């Protein structure tokens, strides 16, 4: 298992083509724009060597029997699923931010089980190829970015109906050595500081879309791969410290648009190529695993928001006010409700034919749906308690200015005994964690709300509920 430092060094040896603000980045690991995201991901490596955390962050490989980082593990039982959720909450409590590695974790688990079932039904040999790839991932502690969301062009048209055929990642050529692919993947969390990406189809496919039914692993620095880093709210603050709020780990995962221009993929790393019948299953497996996470990681992020809110109440001298205590109680209630949902979908997990354990998809989609609401509500309450100063704080430069700094310190002071700078630091943490890009991540990460509602209705067993009502009401069978 790599340490955090070994992970950072491994990134330095890559030739990843990352663009930000129109320029090619040549110092990714040490560049303030990316450093917090690298630090966050590095913690997933470092904690595997921490005695306090290792029970959650490590697992035993079912392929080799070796101790591995859990982010490269295939869930063998519901205990693994539960430990995943607890691990995510624990790490998020330390980072206060996305640490990116769950996407690839979910991608390997989804691909593992679906390739097995695909081979069983179609006589293909993708699963064994994937197992070999997985051994490489586990042995080398590879950070895999899950690559699902296509750019999609006209959302009213299917992939094969698009005017520009590259709106969904597709196979443009096959030869005896492998395939050539084109297209782009959007919202790629952690991609710029990953080693590989695991490409999956973005939606269920019909036969006419089979050129888009594609799953494969590609190094992030493969020839033809270009990453265009996404802007984040307040990203120019990354060149300072206090105003960033969370200078070490950042606010979100660090997302990018990844362009694939005639990228070669050897057959050994192709895990679906035209089997359109299984594209939907792969999407459903990945999405459910990924939605399982959010009561864990966003629960941990919410723990930090609650802590910051309670601290600012202390600093403002209002902790004992009954309405403040009630609002903090509501924040805790919402957070633990999210955590409960993630634990529930894990406890109700079941074995797939491959032996890998899968979450309950109805409950997993339910928890993610709640995240799209509760994190906003938790953030709203935190703004209520923090007060308007959250939006009108002077800058770090003003605080430190020789001439006007004394006024900032004098007039922005709260209770006696707490330095003004501490009050500003907590407010900046809260501001950054509860607005802009950080908030939108809760809405759309792991799929937008409507995607969950589609699956909730599909899995919701509505006919059974109707029958319950009819039986009690003694409605005739015909009714």
């Amino acid at each position, binding site marked *: 298992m790599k340490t955090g430092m070994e992970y950072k060094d491994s990134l330095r040896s890559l030739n990843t083509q990352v663009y930000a603000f129109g320029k090619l980045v040549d110092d990714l690991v040490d560049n303030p724009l990316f450093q917090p995201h690298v630090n966050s991901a590095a913690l997933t490596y470092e904690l595997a060597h921490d005695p*306090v955390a*290792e*029970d*959650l962050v490590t697992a035993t490989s079912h392929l080799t029997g070796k101790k591995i980082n859990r982010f490269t593990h295939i869930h063998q039982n519901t205990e693994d699923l539960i430990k995943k959720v607890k691990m995510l909450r*624990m790490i998020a409590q330390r980072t206060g931010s996305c640490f990116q590695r769950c996407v690839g974790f979910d991608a390997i688990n989804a691909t593992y089980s679906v390739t097995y079932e695909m081979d069983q039904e179609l006589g293909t040999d993708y699963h064994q190829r994937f197992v070999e790839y997985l051994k490489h991932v586990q042995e080398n502690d590879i950070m895999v970015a899950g690559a699902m969301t296509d750019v999609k062009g006209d959302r009213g048209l299917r992939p094969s109906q698009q005017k520009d055929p590259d709106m969904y990642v597709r196979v443009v050529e096959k030869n005896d050595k492998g395939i050539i692919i084109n297209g782009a993947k959007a919202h790629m969390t952690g991609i710029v500081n990953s080693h590989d990406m695991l490409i999956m189809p973005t939606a269920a496919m019909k036969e006419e879309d089979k050129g888009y039914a594609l799953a494969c692993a590609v190094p992030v620095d493969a020839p033809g791969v270009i990453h265009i880093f996404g802007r984040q709210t307040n990203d120019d603050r990354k060149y300072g410290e206090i105003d960033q709020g969370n200078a070490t780990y950042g606010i979100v995962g660090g997302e990018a648009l990844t362009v694939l221009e005639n990228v070669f993929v050897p057959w050994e790393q192709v895990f679906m190529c035209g089997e359109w019948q299984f594209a939907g299953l792969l999407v459903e497996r990945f999405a459910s695993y990924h939605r399982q996470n959010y009561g864990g990681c966003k629960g941990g992020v919410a723990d930090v928001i609650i802590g910051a809110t309670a601290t600012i109440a202390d600093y403002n001298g209002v902790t004992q006010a009954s309405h403040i205590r009630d609002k903090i109680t509501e924040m805790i209630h919402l957070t633990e409700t999210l955590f409960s949902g993630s634990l529930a979908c894990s406890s109700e997990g079941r074995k797939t034919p491959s032996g890998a354990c899968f979450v309950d998809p109805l409950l997993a989609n339910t928890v993610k749906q709640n995240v799209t609401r509760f994190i906003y509500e938790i953030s709203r309450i935190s703004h209520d308690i923090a007060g308007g100063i959250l939006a009108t704080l002077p800058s770090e430069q003003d605080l430190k200015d020789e001439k006007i700094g004394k006024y900032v310190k004098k007039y922005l002071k709260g209770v006696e005994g707490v330095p003004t700078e501490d009050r500003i630091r907590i407010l900046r943490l809260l501001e950054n964690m509860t607005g802009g890009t950080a908030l939108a991540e809760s809405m759309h990460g792991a799929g937008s709300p409507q995607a969950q509602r589609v699956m909730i209705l599909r899995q919701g067993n509505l006919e059974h509920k109707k029958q319950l009502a009819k039986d009690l009401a003694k409605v005739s069978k015909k009714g």
Partner: protein
Amino acid sequence: MKTVTVKYCGHCNPHLQGPVILEQVKGKLPHVRFISGASEEGAGVLLVISGCPVDCAARPSGFSSVIATAGYTVDGRNVSKDTLVAEISSKLQGLLEDS
């Protein structure tokens, strides 16, 4: 010098900080060596420190004696914040003398 192996749960929502508790136990048992990070088979005395009463830490096999601290409980019995360290230390002392 007798040795105790320490295993933590992972501390996802801890009611107490395991490493802090361990430091206090070490203070009461200066003649004992504590090693942590065990996940494989071991021997002797195992001290499990879970952050909350769920007590979800995996138990490595092979240990002759196990003391499980889970939040403010020791081997399933509630203890107060003030007596937790003394309770763990006393139990460890007894096991080490017997071993």
